[in-house]
C-alpha cells in the first residue's frame, strides 16, 4: 500500500522551530513529527510513502534516505513547482499512486493522533466507494468546517463551513483513504480537496466518514504543539506506561530521553518531554514543556508551556511561560523573564520580555 503525506511549504506557523529544520523533522515527543505518521503507516502495511513538498530540502531528503533503509520501505519525494493546495499534489503523484489498484492513504502532515490506518482500510473496503474521511469530535464546531453524515453507514451528506447553528460536531481530521478512481476528479493545478473535490464526491454518494477514537490534534503551531504533546503523553500513559519517567521529583506524564541528565531537587511535570543530551541542572521546575536535544536548563529556572529548541541554554532563575518558543541555539541570560517570547535561532537574550513578542 501507498501513502501520500501533504508536507507542503515552509511550515511558517511553527516558526522559529522551522527556521532550523523542515517541519516534518521537528521533534514531537522525542520523535520527528513525520516519523510518528510513517511508522504508523508501516505498521498498517504501507511500503511506499510519498512526501508532497513544495520546497527543496536536502535535510529532509537525507533523513528520508536513512528512514527508507531503517524501515525497509520506499520513500519518494514529489516536488511541486508551485503550491498545488491539498488536492493538486495527488494529481502530481498520479503515476506513483496508480502503480497498482490498491487504495492509498492521504494525510496532512500536522496531525497527531492514534492513527487508525488498519481500521480505515477495513472501513473503506466495507463501503466500497471512492473515499473515506476520518472525522473527529470537537467541542466548538462553529470554529471549523463540519461534516454531516448518516450515523449508521457513515455516508457523508454535506459539509458546512463554520456553522452558526449546530449541525454536527465532527470535523475533517486530515486523514483519508482513497481508491485510485478519485484521481480522475483531480487536475494538475492548485486545488483544495476540502472545498472543490469532497463536496462533489459527497453529492455522488462516494464519500464516507469514519469516526476517530481517541485524541486528535493539529500541531501546526506552538500552542497546539504543546496541547498535542499533553494528549500524546496521556495516550502513552495508557498504552506504554513503561516509556514514561517516574520517580521522586517527577509528576504526571513525563518523557525523558535516557541520555538526558537531571539534577537534584527538580520538580518536573506534568506533561514534559525532555530530549536526548539535555541537561537539567539542580532545582529546576518544568511543566507542560518540550525541551529539545542538547539544551541546558540552568539551576533554579522555571518553565511552563514553553518549547526550548535544540542546543539552547536557559540561564539560572529564568522564568519562561505562556508559549515562549526558543529557536535553535538560543541563549537566555540569567534571571530573565520571558512571557510569550518567540525567539529566532542563534539569539542571545539579555533583557526580559514581559509581554509576548517576536525577538528577531
Amino acid at each position: 500500500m501507498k501513502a501520500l503525506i501533504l508536507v507542503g511549504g515552509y511550515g511558517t506557523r511553527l516558526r522559529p522551530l522551522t527556521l532550523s529544520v523542515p517541519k516534518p523533522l521537528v521533534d514531537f515527543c522525542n520523535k520527528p513529527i513525520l516519523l510518528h505518521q510513517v511508522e504508523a503507516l508501516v505498521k498498517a502495511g504501507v511500503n511506499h510513502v510519498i512526501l508532497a513538498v513544495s520546497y527543496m530540502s536536502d535535510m529532509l531528503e537525507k533523513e528520508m534516505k536513512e528512514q527508507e533503509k531503517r524501515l525497509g520501505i520506499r520513500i519518494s519525494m514529489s516536488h511541486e513547482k508551485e503550491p498545488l493546495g491539498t488536492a493538486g499534489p495527488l494529481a502530481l503523484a498520479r503515476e506513483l499512486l496508480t502503480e497498482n489498484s490498491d487504495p492509498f492513504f492521504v494525510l496532512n502532515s500536522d496531525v497527531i493522533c492514534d492513527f487508525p490506518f488498519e481500521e480505515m482500510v477495513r472501513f473503506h473496503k466495507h463501503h466500497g466507494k471512492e473515499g473515506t474521511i476520518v472525522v473527529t469530535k470537537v467541542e466548538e464546531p462553529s470554529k471549523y468546517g463540519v461534516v454531516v453524515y448518516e450515523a449508521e453507514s457513515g455516508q457523508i451528506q454535506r459539509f458546512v463551513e463554520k456553522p452558526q447553528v449546530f449541525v454536527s460536531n465532527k470535523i475533517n481530521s486530515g486523514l483519508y483513504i482513497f481508491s485510485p478512481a478519485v484521481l480522475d476528479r483531480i487536475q494538475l493545478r492548485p486545488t483544495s480537496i476540502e472545498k472543490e473535490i469532497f463536496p462533489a464526491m459527497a453529492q455522488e454518494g462516494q464519500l464516507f466518514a469514519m469516526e476517530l477514537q481517541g485524541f486528535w490534534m493539529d500541531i501546526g503551531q506552538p500552542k497546539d504543539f504543546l496541547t498535542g504533546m499533553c494528549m500524546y503523553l496521556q495516550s502513552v500513559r495508557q498504552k506504554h506506561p513503561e516509556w514514561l519517567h517516574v520517580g521522586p521529583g517527577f509528576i504526571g506524564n513525563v518523557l525523558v530521553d535516557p541520555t538526558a541528565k537531571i539534577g537534584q531537587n527538580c520538580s518536573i511535570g506534568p506533561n514534559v518531554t525532555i530530549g536526548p543530551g539535555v541537561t537539567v541542572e539542580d532545582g529546576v521546575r518544568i511543566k507542560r514543556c518540550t525541551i529539545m536535544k542538547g539544551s541546558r536548563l540552568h539551576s533554579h529556572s522555571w518553565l511552563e508551556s514553553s518549547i526550548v529548541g535544540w542546543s539552547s541554554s536557559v540561564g539560572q532563575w529564568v522564568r519562561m511561560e505562556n508559549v515562549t518558543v526558543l529557536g535553535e541555539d538560543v541563549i537566555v541570560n540569567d534571571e530573565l523573564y520571558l512571557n510569550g517570547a518567540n525567539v529566532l535561532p542563534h539569539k542571545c537574550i539579555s533583557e526580559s520580555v514581559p509581554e509576548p513578542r517576536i525577538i528577531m
Partner: protein
Amino acid sequence: MLKAVILIGGPQKGTRFRPLSFEVPKPLFPVAGVPMVQHHIEACSKVPNLKEILLIGFYQPNEALSSFLLKAQQEFKVAIRYLQEYSALGTGGGIYHFRDQILSGGPQAFFVMNADVCSAFPLVPMLDFHKQHGGSQSYVILGTTANRSQSLNYGCIVANGETQEVLHYVEKPGTFVSDIINCGIYLFSPSIFQHIAEVFQRNQQELQLEENSSWQRTEVIRLEQDVFTTLAGRGKLYVYKTEGCWSQIKSAGSAIYASRLYLSQYGSTHPERLASTKEGGPTIRGNVYIHPTANVDPSAVLGPNVSIGMGVTVGAGVRIRESIVLHGAVLQDHSCVLNTIVGWDSTVGRWARVEGTPSDPNPNDPYSKIDSETLFREGKLTPSITILGCNVSIPAEVVILNSIVLPHKELSRSFKNQIIL
C-alpha cells in the same frame, strides 16, 4: 558646643512611601540594614563637640521611636530627644517653636537636616566652611549639582562663584534657574531665629488682615520658601557644595537606591556590615548586608545591593538582587526576588518570581538624581519597584511584576502592573 536637629515629619507626610509607612514611621524604615535616620545620628555623633540631637516631628510618641532613640543614645553616646509638634509646622516652624530647647546650653551653631535624605553627611567640612564664611552671622546650606531638567524638582541656589554666597534662592522653579540644588542639610548660627521671627511676625500681621484664614497658622513656616528666599543676597547665606553621594528618599523605590549608596559607603565606614562569600555560606555578589539573626541557605545567591533584615529566612537556591527584605520575611526555595521590597513577615513561595523595575538615575549622567516618580502616568501605573506590604503571602511558582501589594494580602495567582488592595 554644637547641636543637631533632624526633621522627621509625621504620619500624614510620606504618602509616596506607602504601603511601607503604614507599619513603621518612615524615618525608621531600614536603609542598608539600619533605620533611615540612624545614618544621620551616626554622622552627628562623629562631629566633635556635638552634644545633643533633637528629633522634631509630629508623630505621636510610640514604642518603635522611643526604643530606637534609647538604643541609638547608648550606641552613639550622645543625648537624643524627640520633640513633638502639636501639628505640622513646616521646616522652619518646627525649629522656631522649639527654639528654646535648641538654644539651651548655648550652642554656637546647630545642624538642621531632613530625615528623608541619604547623604555622606560632610558635617565637619561644613563646620570649617562656616567658620571661614561669616561664622556666627552666617548660615550654610549643603548643595550639590543636579542636571538641568531635574533641578526644577528641588530648591535651586544661585551662588557667587568665588565667595559661595547665596545670591538667589527659589524652591522648585518652573524654569531653569541653577543646577546647584538644596540637599536639605543646613548649618545655622542661633541668629537664624531672628530671621524666622520676622517671617512669624509677618504671618501674624497678614493673618489679622484676613478674617477667614484661621486654618493658616502663623506658626507654619517653611525654611526654603519663607526664609532662604529673603536671606539670599544679604551676605548671610552660603552654599557648601558637596561632590559626595546624595539622594532624597521620597518613594519606596528611592529607598533601594539609597541603600545602594549607603552600602557602598560601608566599604570604608563599616566593612563589618558587608557580607562576603565564605566557606559554607551563601554566594555574595557586590555589597550585601545580612542581619546576624537571618538564616540564609548556603546555596542562595545574594547581591548586589541587598539588605536582609532581622530573622529573615532565605531558602535553598534563592536569588536576591537590588532588594530590601524586611524582618521576619521568608523566601522559600528557588524563589527569585529582583528590585523589590519584601515587607515584614511576608512569604514568597517556591519558584515564585517577584520583580520590579528599577527607577535608578541615569547612570551616564553623573549629576542625575532619582526621580521621585508619580505612581501613575497617563492613567497607567508606571513600572516601578515591586513592594510587598507587611504579612503578604505570595504562592509558589507565580510571578509578581511591577506591583504594589498592600499589607496582609494572601495572593492566589500572578499579578503584573497592579496595585493590589
